[in-house]
C-alpha cells in the first residue's frame, strides 16, 4: 500500500500545486517530495531483504480485464534500489529549482512531481501495460520541462528528445505485445500482461523470435539508455534542460532504459541476449570511447557531462550484457551511482549557471578561488564520476568490467586456462572477454582525461569570469546587460537592481542539496554491500535463466556438451574464500553438491 502512496503523493502534490498560489508552489512540491521520502522509509523497513528476489509490497487491481491488463505494483530488490534513487532525487530537484525557476513555477513544480510519479510507476509496475504507460508518460513532463524552462535551443531539444524516444518505444511496444500474444496463444487466447507471467512464455520462444523481440526492445530501451549510435538526443536535451530536468534525466530517466533492458531484455529474451550480447557489448565499448573522447573536446560544460553519460552508461550496459552475477550487479549499482554522481554534477553546473548564465568553459575558470565550497563538491563529484575507489563510482565500474572480463566461454580452455594443473577457472560463459574489457577499460583513462580537463578548466587555474562579472566582486555579480536572450531569471536579476539572490559561494540550501548526495556517494563507495546484498537474489534469478541459455548456446555452438571448465578434482586446494564466517547468502544460494561444499570450506 505504501507503494501506492509513493505513486499518489506526487500526483496529489501536483493537484495541490495547481490549486495553490504561485509562490507556494515550491513549498508544496518540497513537502510532497519529502513526504515521499518519508513514505519510502516504511517501504524499506517492510521489505524482506532475505527474499529480495520476490516481488513484495504488491497491490493488484483489475483494470482492463478484457485485455488482461491489471494495475499491479510491487518491488523486488532491484526496483527498491532504483525507487530509492527516484524518491531521493525528488526533494533535491525541487530544492535545486527554488531560485532558478521564477517564471510559471506552478507548471514547473506540478510537472516535476508528475514526472516523479511516472518514474516511480515504471520502477514498481508489475504489469506490462502499466509499465509502458508510465515509461511513456515520463516524456510529457520532461518535454514540458525542457520546452518551457530550457535554454535557447529548447524547442528543438524537447522535440528531438520526445520524438526520438517515443519512436523507439513504440517499436518496443510492438515487441512486448508480440510476447503477450505468444503468451495468449499458449493460454487459450487469454491475454495477460503480467510481467513475470509473460517472462515464462517469452523465455521459451524460439531463438530467432527472441532475436526479433530483442531488437524491438532495444529500439526503445537503447535509445533511452542511450547506447552509442542512438545517443544524440541526450546531449541536446541535457544542455537545454533546466537543472532539475537534467538531474532527473541523468539520475533516473536514463535508468528507465537500463532498467528496461534488465527487466525485459534479460528477463524476456535471455536466449537472444546470450546470442547477441557481444554485439551490444561492442556498441557499449564504442560508446564508452567515443562518448568519452567527445567529452574531451567540448566547450560547454553541461554538454561535457551529458556526453559523459553516454560513456558511463556504456559501462552500465556492458555489465548488463556480461550476463553474469558480477556484471549485472555492477550494472544495477551503476544505475544508482551514476544517478547520484552525474545528477550531482548537473546540480553543481546548474548552480554555476544560475550565477553566471554561461556554461562555456572559455568564460569560466578558476572558480576555486571564488567558490571554495562549490569547488570542493565539484571535485568530489567529478572524482566519484571518474570512478575513484572509495567513492560510489568505482565498485559498479569495477564489477561491470570484471563481469565482462569473466564472460568468455573460452576461459579454462587451452591458452585461456589450465588443463594441466588442477586449477579451476572462474570465468563465466559469454562472448565478451578480456580484450573487450581492455578496450572498455581505456574508458577509465578517458574519463579521467575529460573530467579532469573540465575540473582543471572550471575549478582550477586562474580566475576567469564571463564578461560583465567583476573578478574582485565580493558578492553577487555585476550583471548589467539584459540582451533578452536570458530567461526570466536574468530579468529578475535586473529587476532587483543587479543584486543576485545568491551569494558568491553556495548558500545553505545549495549545500543542503549537495551534501546528502555527497554523503551517499561516499557511503555507497565504502559500503556498497548495503545495495548488493539487497538485490543479490533478484539478480541471481535472472542469471540462472541466462546461464541455462548460455549453456544451451555453447552446446549448439561447440556441438557438444563441453563443460566450461574441467571438473575440479576433489583434492584441489582450498577454493573458497576460506573465511570462517558463513555468509547468509551461502545458505540461500544452493550448494547442492556436498563435495563442492566440502571443498569450498
Amino acid at each position, binding site marked *: 500500500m505504501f507503494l501506492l502512496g509513493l505513486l499518489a503523493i506526487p500526483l496529489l502534490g501536483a493537484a495541490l500545486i495547481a490549486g495553490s498560489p504561485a509562490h507556494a508552489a515550491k513549498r508544496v512540491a518540497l513537502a510532497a517530495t519529502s513526504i515521499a521520502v518519508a513514505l519510502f522509509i516504511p517501504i524499506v523497513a517492510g521489505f524482506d531483504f532475505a527474499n529480495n528476489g520476490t516481488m513484495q509490497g504488491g497491490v493488484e487491481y483489475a483494470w482492463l480485464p478484457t485485455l488482461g491488463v491489471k494495475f499491479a505494483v510491487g518491488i523486488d530488490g532491484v526496483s527498491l534500489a532504483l525507487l530509492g534513487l527516484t524518491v531521493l532525487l525528488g526533494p533535491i530537484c525541487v530544492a535545486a529549482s527554488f531560485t532558478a525557476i521564477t517564471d510559471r513555477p506552478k507548471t514547473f513544480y506540478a510537472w516535476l512531481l508528475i514526472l516523479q510519479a511516472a518514474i516511480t510507476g515504471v520502477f514498481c509496475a508489475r504489469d506490462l501495460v502499466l509499465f509502458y504507460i508510465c515509461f511513456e508518460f515520463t516524456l510529457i513532463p520532461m518535454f514540458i520541462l525542457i520546452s518551457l524552462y530550457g535554454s535557447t535551443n529548447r524547442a528543438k531539444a524537447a522535440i*528531438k528528445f520526445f520524438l*526520438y524516444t517515443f519512436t523507439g518505444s513504440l517499436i518496443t511496444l510492438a515487441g512486448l505485445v508480440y510476447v503477450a500474444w505468444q503468451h495468449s496463444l499458449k493460454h487459450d487466447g487469454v491475454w495477460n500482461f503480467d510481467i513475470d507471467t509473460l517472462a515464462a512464455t517469452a523465455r521459451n520462444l524460439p531463438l530467432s523470435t527472441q532475436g526479433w523481440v530483442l531488437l524491438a526492445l532495444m529500439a526503445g530501451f537503447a535509445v533511452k539508455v542511450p547506447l552509442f*549510435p542512438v*545517443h*544524440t538526443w541526450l546531449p541536446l536535451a541535457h544542455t537545454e534542460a533546466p537543472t532539475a530536468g537534467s538531474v532527473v534525466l541523468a539520475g533516473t530517466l536514463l535508468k528507465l532504459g537500463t532498467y528496461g533492458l534488465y527487466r525485459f531484455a534479460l528477463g524476456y529474451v535471455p536466449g537472444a541476449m546470450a546470442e547477441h550480447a557481444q554485439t551490444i557489448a561492442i556498441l557499449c565499448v564504442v560508446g564508452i570511447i*567515443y562518448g568519452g*573522447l*567527445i567529452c*574531451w*573536446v567540448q566547450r560547454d560544460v553541461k554538454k561535457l557531462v551529458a556526453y559523459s553519460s553516454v560513456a558511463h552508461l556504456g559501462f552500465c550496459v556492458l555489465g548488463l550484457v556480461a550476463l*553474469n*552475477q*558480477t556484471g549485472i*550487479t555492477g550494472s544495477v549499482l551503476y544505475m544508482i551511482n551514476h544517478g547520484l554522481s552525474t545528477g550531482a554534477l548537473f546540480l553543481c553546473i546548474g548552480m554555476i549557471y544560475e550565477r553566471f548564465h554561461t556554461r562555456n568553459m572559455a568564460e569560466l575558470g578558476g572558480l576555486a578561488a571564488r567558490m571554495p565550497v562549490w569547488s570542493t563538491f565539484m571535485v568530489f563529484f567529478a*572524482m566519484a564520476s571518474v570512478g*575513484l*575507489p*572509495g567513492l560510489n563510482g568505482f*565498485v559498479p565500474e569495477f*564489477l561491470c568490467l*570484471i563481469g565482462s*572480463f*569473466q564472460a568468455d566461454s573460452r576461459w579454462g580452455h587451452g*591458452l*585461456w*586456462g*589450465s588443463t*594441466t*594443473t588442477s*586449477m579451476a577457472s*572462474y570465468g563465466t560463459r559469454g562472448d565478451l572477454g*578480456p580484450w573487450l574489457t*581492455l578496450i572498455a*577499460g581505456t574508458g577509465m*583513462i578517458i574519463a*579521467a*582525461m575529460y573530467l*579532469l580537463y573540465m575540473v*582543471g578548466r572550471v575549478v*582550477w587555474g*586562474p580566475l576567469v569570469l564571463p564578461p560583465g562579472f567583476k573578478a574582485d566582486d565580493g558578492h553577487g555579480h555585476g550583471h548589467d546587460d539584459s540582451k533578452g536572450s536570458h530567461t526570466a531569471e536574468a530579468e529578475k536579476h535586473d529587476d532587483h537592481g543587479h543584486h543576485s539572490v545568491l551569494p558568491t559561494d553556495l548558500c545553505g540550501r545549495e549545500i543542503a542539496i549537495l551534501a546528502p548526495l555527497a554523503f551517499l556517494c561516499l557511503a555507497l563507495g*565504502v559500503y*556498497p*554491500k548495503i545495495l*548488493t*546484498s539487497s538485490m*543479490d537474489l533478484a539478480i541471481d534469478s535472472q542469471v540462472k535463466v541466462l*546461464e541455462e541459455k548460455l549453456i544451451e548456446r555453447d552446446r549448439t555452438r561447440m556441438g557438444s556438451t563441453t*563443460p566450461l571448465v574441467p*571438473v575440479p578434482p576433489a583434492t584441489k586446494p*582450498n577454493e573458497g*574464500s*576460506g*573465511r570462517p564466517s558463513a*555468509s547468509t547468502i*551461502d545458505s540461500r*544460494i544452493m*550448494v547442492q553438491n556436498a563435495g563442492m*561444499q566440502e571443498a*569450498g570450506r
Partner: protein
Amino acid sequence: MMTLLTNTHGLMHALSGAALAVSDEAGHAAGHASGPVAQTFAAGPMFGLLVVALPLLACILCGLCAMGRVKTKLPAFLTVLCLAGSFLVTLALYLQHHGQPAGTAWIIQGFEWIRLDYRQMVDSVVQSRSFIANFGLYVDSLTCLWMLFVTGLATLIALYASEYMSHDVGQGYNRFFAAFSLFVFSMACLVMADNLVLLYLGWEGVGLCSYLLIGYFYKKPSAVAAAKKAFILNRIGDLGLALGIMLCYVHFGSVEYKVIFEKCAPYMASLAAGQLDQIPLIAQFIPLCLMIGAFGKSAQLPLYVWLPDAMEGPTPVSALIHAATMVTAGVFLIARTYPLFLMSEYALPIVAWVGALTALLAATIGMAQFDIKRIMAYSTVSQLGYMFAGLAVLTSVGGAAHVFTHAFFKAMLFLACGAVMHGFAGQLDLRKLSGVGSMPGWRVVGIAMLVGCLNLAGFPIITAGFWSKDMILGEAFANSQMQAIGWILLLTAGLTAYYTFRVYFRVFVGPKHYEPGDEHHGDDHGHDHGHGHADGHDEGHQTSGKHGFHPHAPGWAINTVLATLAVAAFVIVPLVALNHGGWVKDMVGASSAQFNEKAAYLIAAKGDLHTKFFGFDAHKAMMVVSSIVGLIGIAVAFVLHYQGRTTAATSKADALLPAFGPIAKWAQNKWYVDEFYNAIVRMPLLALAQIFHWFDKLVIDGLVDFFGWTPRGLGGSLRPAQSGEMHTYAVGMAGGLAVMAVVVIVVLM
C-alpha cells in the same frame, strides 16, 4: 682495471672487516636455497586498524577545520599528532608481529567492502563462487617494513610542512593537511590491504592525493596541468593493474592475497621442479598486467614523464609522495605479489630492463637540468629504476632495502631543496644560487644536503644508500642473465654521483651568491611572505629584485626534521648493511617477496646465480667497483663544478658542453619525450576526439535529423498534389484507383 679491482677488493675487505659479516659463497647460496619460510595465516590484532584509521581521522579533522574556516596551525598539529599515533601503532604492531614465528601473516578483518556470492553451473554441478574484497589488513613483515617508514616519514614531513606551509595558514592550510592525511590513509590502505582491490583503492587514493597536492597551487596553470598529467598517466597504469586484478580473479577465483598465495603454491612447486610449462599461460599474464600498474605509479618507462612535472607541488609533497612513499608503491606491488611475478618467464626480465633503462635515461636527463628540484625528481625516477631492477634481478631484499634507504635520503634531499626554495622565494635554479650551506642559519640544511647527496651518490661504507645499491648491483652481476642490467646500473651509479654532487657543489658550497626567485605561485598561495607569516623571519624583504631581499633561514621545525633525517640516514645503515641486508632482509625474506623457487628454477634450468665478476665474487667485487664509480662521479662533479668556480652562473662544465654536441641539449630537453608523447599519443587522440565530435554532430546526429526530416521532406514532396485544384485531386483519385488496380493485378499474377 683488474689490478685496481683487486686492490680495492682488499681495501674493502679490510674496511668492512669484522663489522660486516659478509657471507661467503656457501652462505649466500644457502640464502637462496634455504627452504621457504612457510607462510602461515592468522587473525591479527584489531588495533592494527588504527594505523589506517588515524590518518583518516586526521583527514576528517582537517576537513572539519576547513569547514570551520580555522585560521591557525591547528590542522598541522592534528595531522602530526595523528600520524605520530599511526607510527606508534605501526611500531607496536611490528613489535607484536616480530614475536610471531617467521612467515606469519596476520589478517585483520575490518568490514566487508565488496561481497558478491553467486553460483555457477560447471558441468551440471552448481558451484558457489564469490567475489570478496574486504576492508581487511594483511600484516606481514613486508607490510611492517613499509608502514614503518611511511608513517615515520609522514610524521616528520608533516612537521616540516607545518612550517613550510605556514604562509598559507587560513587559506590552503586546511586543504593541504587534509589531503596530506588522506594520502597517508590511502598509502596505508595500499600497503596493508589484504586484497588487490583494496590495494587498488589505496593505489588510486594516493593518485588522487597526489593530484590534489600537485595542483595545490591551483592558480598556476602549470601546476594544474602537472596534476592532470600525473593522474592520467597513473590511470593508464591503473588500467593495467585493474586488468591484472581481473585476471587474478578469473584465474584464482579471488583477489585476496591469502587465497592467491595458497593457490600459487602448486605453481611454485612446479617452478621449483623446473616445470615452467605446468604453469598456464594465462597465469603468466597476470604479472605482465600488474607491472603496468607498477610502472605507472613508480614512474618507469614509458610512463615516467609525470613525476618531474609533479614537482609543481609544495616541496613536502614532493618529498613524501613523489620521492619517499607513493612512488615506491610499484615496488611494493611487485614485492607483495612476487610469487605471481616468479611464475612468468618474462615478467622479471621485462621489469629489469625497464628499470635499468629508466634509471639510465633519468640519470642522463638529471645531469643536464638546472632546476634542483627537477634534478631530484629525475634522480627519483632513476633510483626507482634501480629498485625495479633490484626486484627483477632476484634481490627483493635489495629492492626493498633501496626503497627503505632512498625514502630517507631522498626525503631529506627534497626537504633541503624545499628549505632553499622556501628561503629564496622559490629560487631553484642552480645557476643562481651558490654557497648556501655557509650562509648564516643554513648550516643544518647544508649538512642534511651533504648527507643526502652522499647517500644518493653511494658513498662507500658509511651511507645506507651505498649498501642498498650495492646489493642490487652485486646481485645483477651475480645473475648470469642480468649482466647487461648490471652494467647499465653501474653506469647509472656513476652518473648519479655526478649529478648529485653537481647540485651540492653548485648550490651549497662555493662563493656565496643568490638571486631570489620571482615566486610565481600567485597572490595568495605563493611562497612570498606577506600573509600571516608566523615566524619572525620576514624582515621587510620584497618579493622581487635582488636588493633588499634577505633569504630567511629555516625555522626550528624544518631544522629539526632535517636533522632527524640526517641522523636517521646513518642510523639505518646497520639495518641494511649487516649480513647482506640485515634487518630488511629478515623483514622481506619472511614475506611474500621470497624468491627461492625461482632461484632454484634458474639454477637448475637456465643459469648461474653466482656468476663471477671478472673472476671475483660479484658481491664483493661490486662493493669496490661501485664505490670507485661513485667516487669518480663525485670527483668529476668536484672538478667541474666546485674547483675554481667563482660565480654562481657558470662553471667549468659549461666549457665541456660543446663537446657533447646536441646530446647535451637533448638531455636538457628531457630527450623530447614529452614532445614525443604529445605528438604520437595526445595529438592523435585529440584529433580523433575532434573527428568524433564532428562525426557525431554531422553524421550521426545528421542521420537522426535526416530521419527526422524525412517526414517533412515527404510531406513537402506530397504537398504540391494538394494544389487546391479540383482537377488535380480528380486525377489523383483516378490515378490512384488505377495504381490500386495494378497492385491487385500484380498480386494476382
